[in-house]
């Protein structure tokens, strides 16, 4: 006759997981943003978040705007070159 197996039921695992998750916020409070509570620190995080969000947009946006400008310039130059090289129509007298 074998000994009865000591296993956690599904409900037991869920209870363990909930308890583990419940312990996390206390650990999170140790991080610089939540725990320190200093105004300079909060502002630094806010500003750097904004900075890191805006820089790639500005950089890639800048390149796109510049390429559009280049496209216009090149198109204009092409049009002028076509006008210059087009044959002058003969005058009918």
């Amino acid at each position, binding site marked *: 006759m074998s000994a009865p197996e000591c296993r956690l039921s599904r409900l037991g695992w869920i209870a363990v997981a909930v308890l583990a998750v419940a312990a996390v916020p206390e650990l999170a409070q140790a991080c*610089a943003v939540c725990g*320190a509570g*200093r105004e*300079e*620190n909060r*502002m*630094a*995080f806010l*500003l*750097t978040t904004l*900075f*890191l969000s805006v*820089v*790639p947009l500005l*950089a*890639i946006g800048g*390149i796109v705007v510049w*390429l559009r400008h*280049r*496209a216009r310039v*090149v*198109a204009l*130059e*092409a049009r002028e070159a*076509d006008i210059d090289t087009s044959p002058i129509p003969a005058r009918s007298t």
Partner: protein
Amino acid sequence: MSDRTLRLVGAGPSRQLVSNAVLGMLILVVAELMMFSGLISAFVIVEAAAPGGWPPPNQPRLPVTETAFNTFALLLSGVALFYADRCFRKLRRSAAKPLAAAMFLGAFFVVFQGVEWWQLLSEGLTVTSNTHGSFFYLIVGMHALHAIAGLMVLLNVWIRLAQRRLDGSTLAAAQVFWYFVVGLWPVLYALVYL
């Protein structure tokens, strides 16, 4: 005509919009910009969180005035490269002197930084001494590495010019990188030194 270009395709024949060298360099510069943005952000947060103020007490002061002079030299280097481009458009060979001046001023900047580092190390500011030292050497060191890479690019451009093999797109790509190095430094100087 070379195929290594971004082209404007319309009703007529396709035309060159921007060379691949310049476009590739722009993408590299954006990636480098993001790397420096990350370093700057980390520095700003550590500076704000420093309990005893910034820079930490009992630490050697950074040479603000001397570095301001060095900053001026680097900015002049950017102006010299801009002038070299103007000369190149008029008469190719005439770009050699301003290009050499740009390289000289860039090299002066790097050597001056080296001397400054030597003094700071002898005063006790090392990478491992504290976060002040770590960030100083990390941020300024990364910029110095970029300056050295930019100098190598400029040297390559100068050699090509001397051999009459330099084309406009190579010079433009080198300019993009060097202007990035020059333009970034005042921001780092204001952030780290002031």
